């Protein structure tokens, strides 16, 4: 672990009692500070840095402290604007008779952090029932939100995708989910399970509902494992907080992970969190995660979402394992190979270019995921 990464990880670990990461002992010079502060902002852990500074466990200069305060206030101002949008959206969905669950950052901040100001978020994530996706899109468009991009095909989000994203005129995004993740794991999750339990919380005097405790932890693990590498320390911190302090039932969590086919993702993420924050505490979950074997097929799925193999083609290929039935698989592949014209135009491709590029990328992905080289490289 490099010094810079260790310092950023130490910030992200602030407040975890069992973390063995050493905080800085004296203020960093300006060059080192600039690197650290940039990484802290990128990882969205400014709140944790502010808390560490306030607690006296991360010494900084007065000028650096001013930067931290300004950045934290800016993050929180953004969060409050998103919460205002959330309340508007929730009210509109409620009026339309559409039930929703609040996912990810907003729910984590209010339910899983001891202080919501430690957990910023960059968009609103909502789970809705697959059959109501179109009605949700219509409702949000009436509020002035617009889709950020055309779909592969109109029915793709409700059959194979995670959902879709809409953007408000002010540039705030609402990520509408029908399931918890894109790709193989999202396809494996039985969506009806997501509606069995709910945890209420209050935002601006309004009661909203998040997933149940076990489902929320599994979602955090899935997001950290296959949600992309943006803000990975923050995602791992979510997992660590829930795993260490969450009000979940261990047996139910594992049974749910098994039923959803996401045990490998859960085990890998818990291990990663323990390693990233050098957590010395051993819990039933961390012990299980350490011992849980990761089958080769699951390792390929996880690898398809981790750099350098995290290409669209690799993720699309491994997602096939989550599509049930030959007919559905053909439909899935056909959608990806022959998307709608609007989708292609939005990405600047002709159909011929898309097919040619897709074939090449798929070839590379197959060989990367299986650790083989192209014939001419052999």
């Amino acid at each position, binding site marked *: 672990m490099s010094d810079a990464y260790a310092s950023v990880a130490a910030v992200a670990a602030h407040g975890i009692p069992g973390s063995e990461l050493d905080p800085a002992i004296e203020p960093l010079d300006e060059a080192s500070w600039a690197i650290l502060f940039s990484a802290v902002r990128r990882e969205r852990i400014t709140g944790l840095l502010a808390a560490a500074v306030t607690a006296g466990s991360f010494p900084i200069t007065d000028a650096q402290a001013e930067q931290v305060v300004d950045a*934290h206030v800016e993050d929180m101002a953004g969060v409050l604007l998103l919460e205002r949008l959330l309340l508007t959206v929730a009210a509109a969905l409620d009026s339309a008779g559409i039930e929703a669950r609040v996912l990810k950052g907003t729910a984590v901040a209010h339910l899983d952090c001891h202080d919501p100001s430690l957990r910023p978020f960059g968009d609103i994530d909502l789970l809705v029932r697959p059959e109501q996706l179109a009605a949700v899109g219509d409702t949000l468009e009436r509020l002035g939100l617009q889709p950020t991009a055309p779909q592969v095909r109109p029915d793709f989000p409700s059959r194979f995708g995670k959902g879709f994203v809409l953007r408000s005129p002010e540039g705030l995004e609402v990520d509408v989910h029908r399931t918890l993740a894109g790709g193989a794991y999202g396809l494996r999750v039985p969506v009806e399970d997501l509606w069995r339990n709910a945890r209420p919380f209050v935002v601006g005097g309004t009661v909203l509902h998040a997933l149940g405790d076990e489902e929320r932890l599994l979602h955090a693990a899935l997001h950290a494992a296959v949600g992309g590498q943006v803000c990975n320390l923050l995602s791992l911190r979510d997992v660590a907080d829930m795993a260490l302090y969450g009000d979940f039932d261990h047996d139910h969590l594992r049974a749910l992970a098994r039923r959803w086919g996401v045990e490998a993702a859960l085990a890998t993420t818990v291990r990663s969190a323990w390693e990233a924050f050098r957590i010395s505490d051993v819990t039933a979950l961390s012990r299980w995660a350490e011992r849980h074997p990761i089958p080769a097929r699951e390792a390929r799925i996880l690898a398809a979402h981790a750099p350098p193999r995290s290409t669209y083609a690799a993720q699309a290929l491994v997602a096939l394992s989550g599509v049930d039935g030959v007919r559905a698989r053909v439909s899935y592949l056909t959608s990806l190979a022959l998307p709608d014209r609007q989708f292609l135009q939005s990405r600047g491709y002709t159909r011929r270019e898309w097919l040619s590029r897709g074939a090449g990328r798929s070839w590379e992905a197959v060989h990367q995921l299986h650790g083989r080289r192209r014939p001419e490289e052999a």
Partner: protein
Amino acid sequence: MTQSRTDRFRRPVDALWRAVPSGVVVLGRAGTPVRVNGPGRAVWEALAQAGTRDELVSMLGRDLHLDPPAAATVVDSVLGQLVEQGVVEVSS
């Protein structure tokens, strides 16, 4: 401030805000974030219950060991800011 001495101030139940180490960030009615710094945070927290300006001055003086003129300056400044941004309800 143009309110009378018997006016009671309270933050609305639907206020959106976050406590930060330097104070509080409150979302104004027009969507403008409002920073309430230092001792102003204690005023914001006290506004969870309705109170008059004089009650707030007394509370602030007691809790933060401020003399009455200093406490009054803080309370007037914070209330002025919050009333202007529409994030405090005023009732007679």
